[in-house]
């Protein structure tokens, strides 16, 4: 087991290092000047030169890379030229909002996709299966903005069931005292149930926009993982012994499919964390994606680089955790891992 863990850790470390290198290459080496891009076409050469000096873009590339990496090891992602604050502050301040949204999206995706996928796999070709597959195709065919706009139009503009896209709380409402940075949780901790309810209402539509798209992916993965186990010997044996179909499905098939489902959940959560720039902009949700969007508008490449790096690292860490849990649950994985 130790060898398996070490091996997975080493692979993740290499991938993160590669991630640092790739974001560095994309921002600093590809044709295009970060300083000129930031200042726009009308900037004078003197201004560009001054910014280049401030960002130390005139140093040799290996020195820049070395400085950047040593900074990273100290948790320093460099300065965000558009705001004047450190990139790490800009992004980590907003991390709780992004996590709250992504987590709510994941819960919705699981609530819809999981039972439906199980139902579809239990009776392939029947109503539950065909409707689920249509739903999955539809869910992955809608542009996230479009889905969000439809939800806003229906639930806010027409039926007034949920608040409009103005962020995490009504304008003018004070947020709860900060503990975790997630408003729902923090207001519960403070004992303010009214505020918690309000946070949930403001969270509902953006989370639904993210969650509906992701539920299609969850449905597909649960369905195919459970269906895959239907052909295996243990299912046939259990059935031959006369164990009722439902019991085989829930006790044997689901348990064996859980590994793939777990991987799927990790991937979907990573996707929700990274894929929410659009949703955050649409709903004025002040998360990391919103920072990235503002950085796009002001051409702050350093901030974008930091964003990509953090999203990528979170994604790699999620995969690492999933792989390790995998190893704990399934002895075949860790044994196979140490053989190769």
């Amino acid at each position, binding site marked *: 087991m130790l060898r398996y863990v070490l091996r997975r850790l080493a*692979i993740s470390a*290499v*991938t993160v290092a*590669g*991630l640092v290198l*790739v*974001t560095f290459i*994309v*921002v600093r080496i*590809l*044709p*295009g000047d970060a300083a000129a*891009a930031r200042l726009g076409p009308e900037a004078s050469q003197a201004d560009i030169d001054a910014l280049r000096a401030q960002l130390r873009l005139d140093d040799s590339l290996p020195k820049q890379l070395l400085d950047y990496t040593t900074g990273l090891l100290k948790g320093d992602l460099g300065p965000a030229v558009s705001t004047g604050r450190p990139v790490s502050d800009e992004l980590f301040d907003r991390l709780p909002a992004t996590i709250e949204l992504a987590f709510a999206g994941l819960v919705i995706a699981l609530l819809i996709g999981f039972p439906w996928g199980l139902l579809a796999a239990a009776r392939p*070709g029947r109503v539950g299966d*065909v409707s689920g*597959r249509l739903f999955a*195709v*539809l869910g*992955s*065919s*809608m*542009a*996230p*903005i*479009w889905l969000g*706009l*439809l939800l*806003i*139009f229906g639930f*806010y*503009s027409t039926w007034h069931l949920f608040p*409009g*896209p103005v962020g995490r709380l009504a304008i003018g409402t004070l947020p709860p005292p900060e503990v975790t940075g997630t408003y729902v949780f923090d207001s519960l901790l403070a004992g303010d149930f009214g505020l918690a309810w309000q946070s949930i209402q403001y969270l509902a539509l953006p989370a639904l926009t993210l969650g509906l798209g992701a539920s299609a992916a969850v449905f597909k993965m649960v369905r195919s993982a459970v269906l895959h186990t239907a052909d295996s010997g243990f299912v046939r044996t259990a059935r031959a012994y006369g164990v009722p179909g439902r019991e085989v499905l829930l006790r044997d098939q689901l348990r064996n499919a859980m590994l793939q489902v777990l991987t799927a959940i990790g991937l979907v959560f*990573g*996707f929700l964390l*990274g*894929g929410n*720039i*659009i949703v955050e*902009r*649409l709903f004025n949700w002040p998360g990391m994606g919103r920072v*990235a*969007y503002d950085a*796009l*508008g002001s*051409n702050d*490449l350093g901030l*974008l*680089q930091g*964003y*990509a790096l953090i*999203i*990528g*690292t979170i*994604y*790699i860490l999620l995969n690492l955790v999933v792989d390790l849990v995998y190893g704990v649950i399934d002895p075949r994985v860790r044994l196979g891992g140490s053989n190769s």
Partner: protein
Amino acid sequence: MSTIDAGATAGTRAWPGTLLRRPFLLVGLTIVGILLVLGLVGPFLVDDPSARVAEPFLAPSGSHWFGTDSFGRDIFARCVNAIWLDLAIGVSVAVLAMIIGSAIGVIAGYLGGLVDDVIMRCVDILMAFPGFVLAMILLVSIGESLPKLAIALAIAQVAPFVRLVRAKVLSERELDYVAAARVSGARWPRVAFRHLLPNSIRPAAVQLTLVCGYSILNVSGLAYLGVGIHPPTAEWGVMVSEGAANMLTGQWWTAFFPGLLIAITVMALHFIGDDLGGDRA
């Protein structure tokens, strides 16, 4: 003679029959076919996409099927004119990603060893980004234009092609025909690209339609963030973004119809891809 005739008839009759038994494929192909025809013929039949033909914000009616936008442009005309652009981007991104990805996948799978390790680590790194974020950063960094948009989106989609083709090559390379090619004196590029690639490309070809759909979605997402294609170009994603603000003030049709076309197109591509991938009803 009679046996050949019988065979030929059976062959031609089998076609519509097969299609009818594969309703998803049939629906998908029909939609894409209609879009292609409409995309080619349509621009000659509808208004100029940039002309202000009527009052702003007219609701859908007999004379303006999809209504008019904030400038009084006919949304139906703009949607029809956009078909060609959107399909062209989708297809070129998918083909580009497939060419690059398959070539890398064949090399990784056939050569194996260190080359394979290095390539697959790079693929892991590529897959650590959501494709959308990677394309966005690439575009901002290298500057914007239509070809660059296609290249950035293609790079973001290369990884699945590498994986699919490599996996197939790993099993194909053990077969006799590969050994035969090698024994006959072919060097590795010839074995890899002339013999292995044609036999390992099928899974990638299935992925092609799906990536085509993702790319259309990604273009629309990028347009909403102000990257890639900009107004006043008639493109579905751009039109949805332009109409986004109108959704709150009640003019739902400005964003609804272009978004609906995106959804229908991507759905049709999914139907085709899922069917070819063996996931049948």
